[in-house]
């Protein structure tokens, strides 16, 4: 929403751009994606995944990776190695790898912790959320890596990846909605009573 608003309200966009960057304002809102889509969005995702980890060691690894990512992303941005108003391929790479590793850690926890022995993963809603997140992160990772080529040479394929990513986003949100409707982490069998 903010991205759309800044495309329309160029004045505000320019003001913020001048505040955070030394480069000339070209009318883009890339900085917003860099900050929100690739950095800040990872914090709730990792914390959300962390809620479902029962092994303290794996939790610590997950949070440590988040800390390292935030630190590295800030260092790269503040040192202007990755300009905030332009594309930040290193930050994108780290951001997607962090998301993929967090999902991987969830699965490692699932097959190693004692608590998860009692659950049926197919009825565990976060399992589906994290599976979809993993697929989404991998697709976006691939799209980002081939972004330059696809955007200029094969737009159809570029949109194809974007559409898949969007569908996965919708499914991820659907699992969150199911989580709230279900009022619990597990989909239980309903027993019909006369």
């Amino acid at each position, binding site marked *: 929403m903010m991205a759309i608003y800044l495309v329309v309200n160029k004045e505000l966009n320019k003001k913020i751009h001048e505040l955070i960057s030394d480069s000339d304002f070209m009318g883009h809102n890339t900085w917003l994606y860099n900050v929100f889509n690739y950095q800040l969005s990872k914090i709730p995702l990792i914390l959300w995944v962390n809620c479902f980890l029962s092994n303290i060691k794996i939790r610590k690894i997950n949070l440590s990776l988040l800390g390292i990512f935030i630190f590295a992303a800030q260092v790269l941005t503040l040192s202007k190695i990755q300009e905030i108003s332009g594309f930040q391929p290193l930050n994108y790479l780290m951001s997607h790898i962090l998301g993929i590793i967090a999902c991987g850690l969830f*699965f490692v926890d*699932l*097959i190693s912790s004692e608590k*998860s*022995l009692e659950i049926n*993963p*197919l009825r565990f809603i976060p399992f589906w959320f994290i*599976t979809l997140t*993993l*697929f989404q992160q*991998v*697709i976006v990772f*691939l799209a980002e890596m*081939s972004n330059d*080529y*696809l955007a200029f*040479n*094969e737009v159809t*394929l570029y949109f194809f*990846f974007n559409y898949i990513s969007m569908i996965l986003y919708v499914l991820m949100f659907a699992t969150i909605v199911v989580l709230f409707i279900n009022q619990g982490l597990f989909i239980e069998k309903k027993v019909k009573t006369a």
Partner: protein
Amino acid sequence: MEEESQIVFILFAGAFLAALMATFVVAMVILHRQRQVQNKQKMEQLQLEHERTLLNIENEIQQETMSHIGRELHDNIGQLLSLSKLYLGSSKPEKQAEGRELITKVISEVRGLSKTLNLDWVESISIREFAKQQLDRIQATGFCQTELDQEGDPWELEKNQKLVFIRVIQECLNNAIKHATPDKVSIQIIKNESGRLIIILDDGKGFDTTIPSKGSGMTNLKKRMETIGGEFLIHSSPGNGTEIKLLLPN
């Protein structure tokens, strides 16, 4: 041509990654299921072992009870009946009255004994009462002095837990009498926030706990306490008596 091959590469890479992820997720689910099955088998085995241990304990308690009944019949009831026969055969009315009193006593003794034939008494007796009974029995033989202390509220135990405690206390006291030749044996029953604790203390010969024992008595006692989630701790050194702690956390 080069463009086409790049598109094919990206599509293949995408499909490969998606397949890889799907395989990964399916593999994780299968691994999880396998772990669940293994864990279930392990739990069943543990349950079986637990039940077998409890059955052994019940058998041992019954054997102990039978030998106690045998001793009672021979040393107590048999003597009382012989005496009653003598008194009842007497021509003196006061002797006959004494004989009848003895018969009444025999009846009550037999009633008491019959109650110990099955394990229902385990449910009605408290650990404190059982410990007192055992210590009184030792004291009555004149073998050594005994003492019983209880701190905190009376214990509420499940039947299985009580069975294990009874058997372990019995075995510890038997060991003390058999091997330690103590002057005093004491039992402390403690209940606090962390759990329940029984301390069996004797001032006998003691032994070196670092030397592995030839029998499997101590290992059995330890295992038995573990079956009810408890701990068996022993502290002893030659000449300094033995302290055994039976701990059952809350």
